């Protein structure tokens, strides 16, 4: 065991820093153009545009330490916005279970950030109990297409998506987990209706998606019919690891300190308040531990293991930490956190704070609610029988 970076790692760290610094966005230039260009440049570095993809698919083949360095550096630097749906969630499924034609058809556009994907998993009656899903896909008599009917809910950014990867039911016999089929469906077609759901932060990011007699050619079936649950399960583990957001939380904690130092309390600031200071310290301690839990998880992944049960620990701890940071932002805003609407009032960060806090309440619900994550740990790690 060694926590120091080797000279090679230090050189890599410098290379990453140089890259990020040299390619930061110049506010005088067009953002969208810069964004696409940034990914091109990152690609030219040897797969830096797809850090988590395997080498065989153009990824950089980094060691866990290199991944760690990348996460740390990109959390503080300005990088273009990116969406996980195609890149981190669908791509691994296509690589593992898709056929070569599908890989060639979809992966390049995902990599170039040209096509937006969304995830069609949850349904009104299939939330924590995802396997309960009922969206029906029926194969045509000639075996050339499926007809899909049903509703998906909490579909993030469905309103800007070009495609949806969908779990559908092709059979009702046997266990609930059987008979689930993984389909790729274009969003821009008749029979697909997207209805916005406004959440507590006032934002529109999730949707209800209704599918009515949507025709999907069999070429868009991933893997085998009825085996979709197994593919999705692997994907959920990837999703969970990505949701921990440790590096971003470390940066957010620094921001929080800066904000608190600007909040006056008599002759001192909120940062001198013993109760507030203790809460920041507790957060930092949890982050110090969770950062290493993530590193240990990365290290085992480097030995070829799929993200395992430790991804549940990371999701649990990581999302809790994110929520606590949001709560402390609200507390720092004091009375001004209650302000809403467009007009600026009080401390500049205060208003966004409440919206952020409210949105953060979803972190322990989506991607598998915390209660379900704990069931996973109890069953798969501790080897406990299902509780009554």
């Amino acid at each position, binding site marked *: 065991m060694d926590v120091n970076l080797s000279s090679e790692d230090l050189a890599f760290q410098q290379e990453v820093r140089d890259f990020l610094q040299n390619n930061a966005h110049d506010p005088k230039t067009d953002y969208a153009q810069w964004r696409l260009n940034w990914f091109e440049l990152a690609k030219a570095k040897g797969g830096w545009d797809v850090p988590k993809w395997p080498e065989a698919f153009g990824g950089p083949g980094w060691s866990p330490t290199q991944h760690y360095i990348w996460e740390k550096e990109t959390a503080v630097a300005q990088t273009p916005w990116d969406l996980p749906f195609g890149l981190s969630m669908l791509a691994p499924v296509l690589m593992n279970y898709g056929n070569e034609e599908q890989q060639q058809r979809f992966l390049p556009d995902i990599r170039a950030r040209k096509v937006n994907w969304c995830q069609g998993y949850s349904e009104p009656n299939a939330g924590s109990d995802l396997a309960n899903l009922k969206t029906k896909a029926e194969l045509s008599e000639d075996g050339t297409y499926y007809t899909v009917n049903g509703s998906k809910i909490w579909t993030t950014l469905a309103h800007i998506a070009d495609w949806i990867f969908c779990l559908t039911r092709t059979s009702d016999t046997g266990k609930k987990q059987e008979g689930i089929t993984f389909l790729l469906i274009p969003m821009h077609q008749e029979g697909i209706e997207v209805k916005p759901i406004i959440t507590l932060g006032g934002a529109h990011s999730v949707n209800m998606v209704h599918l009515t007699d949507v025709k999907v050619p069999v070429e868009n079936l991933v893997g085998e019919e009825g085996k979709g649950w197994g593919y999705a399960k692997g994907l959920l583990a990837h999703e969970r690891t990505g949701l921990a957001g440790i590096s971003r939380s470390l940066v957010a904690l620094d921001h929080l300190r800066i904000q608190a130092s600007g909040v006056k309390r*008599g002759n001192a600031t909120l940062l001198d308040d013993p109760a507030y200071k203790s809460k920041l310290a507790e957060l930092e301690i949890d982050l110090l531990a969770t950062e290493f839990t993530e590193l240990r998880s990365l290290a085992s992944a480097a030995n070829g293991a799929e993200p395992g049960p430790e991804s549940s620990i990371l999701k649990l701890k990581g999302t809790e930490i994110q929520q606590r940071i949001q709560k402390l932002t609200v507390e720092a805003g004091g*009375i001004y*956190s209650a302000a809403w609407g467009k*007009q600026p009032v*009080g401390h500049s960060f205060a208003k966004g704070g409440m919206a952020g806090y409210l949105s953060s*309440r979803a972190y322990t619900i989506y991607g598998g609610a915390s209660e379900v994550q704990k069931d996973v740990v109890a069953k798969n790690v501790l080897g406990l029988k299902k509780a009554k």
Partner: protein
Amino acid sequence: MNFDLSEEQQLLKDSVERFVNDNYDLDSRQSLSKNASGFSDTYWQTMAELGWLGVTVPEAHGGFGGNQADTMVLMEAFGKGLVLEPFFASAVLGTRAIVAGANSDTQTALLPELIAGSCRLSLAYAEEQSRFDLEDVITRATAADGGYIINGHKSMVQHGGSADRLVVSARTSGGQRDVNGISLFLVDTKAEGVKVQSFPTVDGQQAAEVSFDNVAVTESDLLGQLDNGFGLLQDIAIDGILALAAEAVGAMEILYKDTVAYTQEREQFDHSLSDFQVLQHRMVDMFMEYEQCKSLLYRATLEVVQNGREAIRIVHALKYMVGKVGTFIGENAVQLHGGMGMTEELRIGHYFKRLLVIDAQFGNSDHHLHCFAG
């Protein structure tokens, strides 16, 4: 010992609960909050007609002659309906200032208007640097021509945009954080030099930033004694905290009961959610914390009724607990409702938001824990 409501209080409770049940379903409430004033003038008039606006006004001035316990009955019911009308700003905060601080001419003129609802008040005490400290006051009032000139800025004035007059804390002597040297003034919002900028708050209510630029007031606009207004300000804040706590307890009741009902309806893994022990225990915790808040609310209210400002320590305890428990119950109500709890469509999110705002009003839980510990 007796925790039962008096016959009069029971009648009050029945009538306010009927009002809430008849008028305050979520859809009606949400559309009312989109009004320019942020509430219903009709309901405001109803409140006047039912005598609620004069609940703490002495009978000699035509009021109900009640105390903080009567206000508690009203506010708890308002909390169950997330009532929008500025009862708290005007009939609790403002009215206390007039009843306890105004000279008899002002009382004779103003109290009937307050009871009738034709004049609305609010309290302007917070400033950007003051955070939760009532005594931290920069806004200044200087003596001039038999009156005072006020200059300064006040933040987050509840329903400031629809208030006719404001009770304003200002420094007449001493340094920024001195308890002595604070005076309270009654200021007309239409007076020259007063600028009111209204905006919505996260709970669907309204607040305002108010600035005072050489605003002239007369000697009779002084509430309480010159330089010794802090005690009165504290009394107003104590009444405010008790009222907010009662409202919060009402909101908490809805949240835990809605959660118990929802988890019984919602099925996952071939069971009602309420069959899962981990969720049952969570709901038991929500229920217990709600009951604890209610106990402390009764305790603080009764002690204040008896001992006034002397009972401030228990008021700190109450506000601490309300903030902490409100967050706990709100967060868990959302968590146990899952994704649905995150939507604007269900009412629980709205109750949660109100509890969050209550925590930020008159000092959050950290602040009051610190005050309690001394």
